């Protein structure tokens, strides 16, 4: 029997829970068909979520899932240019015509990129600076000094995979117009892994302190708000603190989803609840960092 995983027509962090819910108990026993035929758009978060799910299935020794590619030529082309199909071909049995990837679209700062080891983080930060300067400063109006800090935040976010996930993951960075939600352009860093998640990563060292409250939400609070780490090294835990400060400085948003909970540092322009629990389970951790275009100073 095959279970259909419907890919949301607009696949981003808001429609992610619908995607996660469609798996049922994890890992599903049936073979899966990811049906993206009706897909109209996917954020970097959505693109790497699909790869993360397929990776988690492979690691759980499940049958290779099927993937029905979008019917829209534009969507197929865009996903190809963002590097999605290059990696999807290794994880899915693809059905439908996949266009050859041409050079990436100008609003993609970083193609969908695997992160498995420290060397991959070097590759990521080496790819970013020129495009980051052009887009962050030129299009989003951030000061030039934000460019390097953006790369630092990206580096730290990717290192969370290498240091904590216990397996590989994915990163993608893209800019796009957020007309309905914000009325401005944003740059989005999406990082996702299929690893052990925050709760298991911190359980041995921190669960006792939380008692009955311990769970995915408490683990996210411990990591993002209190800056704790599973390592005894007192230098650990500074990466997320830096990202939080960077996001705050530029009126951005960070959200981390792990297991069944999602914790966000919510700016005034957003209305998401800071902590949402009892969500459909999804393996590993998914981080999204959003930096909006800066509003012009009133004259």
């Amino acid at each position, binding site marked *: 029997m095959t279970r259909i995983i419907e890919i949301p027509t607009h696949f981003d962090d808001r429609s992610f829970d619908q995607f996660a819910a469609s798996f049922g108990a994890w890992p599903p026993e049936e073979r899966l068909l990811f049906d993206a035929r009706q897909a109209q758009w996917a954020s970097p978060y959505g693109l790497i979520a699909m790869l993360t799910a397929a990776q988690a299935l492979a690691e759980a020794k499940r049958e290779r899932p099927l993937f029905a590619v979008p019917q829209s030529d534009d969507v197929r082309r865009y996903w190809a240019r963002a590097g999605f199909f290059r990696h999807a071909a290794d994880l899915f049995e693809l059905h439908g015509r996949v266009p050859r990837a041409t050079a990436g679209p100008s609003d993609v700062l970083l193609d969908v990129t695997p992160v498995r080891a*420290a060397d991959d*983080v*070097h590759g990521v*930060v*080496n790819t970013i*600076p020129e495009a980051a300067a052009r887009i962050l400063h030129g299009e989003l109006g951030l000061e030039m*000094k934000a460019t*390097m*800090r953006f*790369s*630092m935040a990206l*580096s*730290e976010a990717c*290192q969370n995979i*290498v*240091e904590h996930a216990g397996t590989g993951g994915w990163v993608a960075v893209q800019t796009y117009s957020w007309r309905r939600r914000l009325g401005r352009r944003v740059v989005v860093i999406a990082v996702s892994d299929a690893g052990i998640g925050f709760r298991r990563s911190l359980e041995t060292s921190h669960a006792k302190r939380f008692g009955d409250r311990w769970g995915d939400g408490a683990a996210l609070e411990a990591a993002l708000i209190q800056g704790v780490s599973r390592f005894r090294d*007192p*230098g650990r835990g*500074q*990466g997320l*603190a*830096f990202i939080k400060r960077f996001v705050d400085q530029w009126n951005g948003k960070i959200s981390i989803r792990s297991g069944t909970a999602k914790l966000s540092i919510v700016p005034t322009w957003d209305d998401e609840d800071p902590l949402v629990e009892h969500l459909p389970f999804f393996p590993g951790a998914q981080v999204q960092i959003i930096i909006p275009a800066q509003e012009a100073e009133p004259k």
Partner: protein
Amino acid sequence: MIQTIRLDHLLREEVATPYRHLVTRRTGAAVRSGIERALAASACHTALLDFTEVDLLDLSCADEIVAKLLMNPGPASERCVVLQGLREDQLEAVEHVLNHHRLAVAAVLADDAPPDLLGCADDDARAAFAQVRNAGPTDAPSLAGALAWAEPRARAALDALASLRLARFVDGLFHPVTVR
């Protein structure tokens, strides 16, 4: 004697990377090991870590290189450490890790400028650091006179500087950290 260690050179040697980014803990640990090896083979009293040709320095790498170098017992624990060539974003990363660990280090923040004190030090240590830097080698009675402090206060501040390796105690005098 002052030994200058170029971090971009060390990065190439230790990690064999074509990049000039100091990112990831693994890279930082490898570079720190290189610094410690260089210092173990040197008779220098001051290590000048030159970041000039480094592009990106992330928190993890700053923690591994700067904070752990200052905290670990080893060849660097006997020397003064001075940083130079830090851009604004790199400076921010270094200050973040210094404050996190309540550490301090000397840094040259502008060409031809004398070292400044970065990180976590109390007001007396900062005042003593500035006085020693500006007026040259001193002892507790002289510092007390210059800053209108009681002598025990001056002595405590100078001892704190020496323990943080922000001054060198030689022949009964506390000497400023210098890079030339």
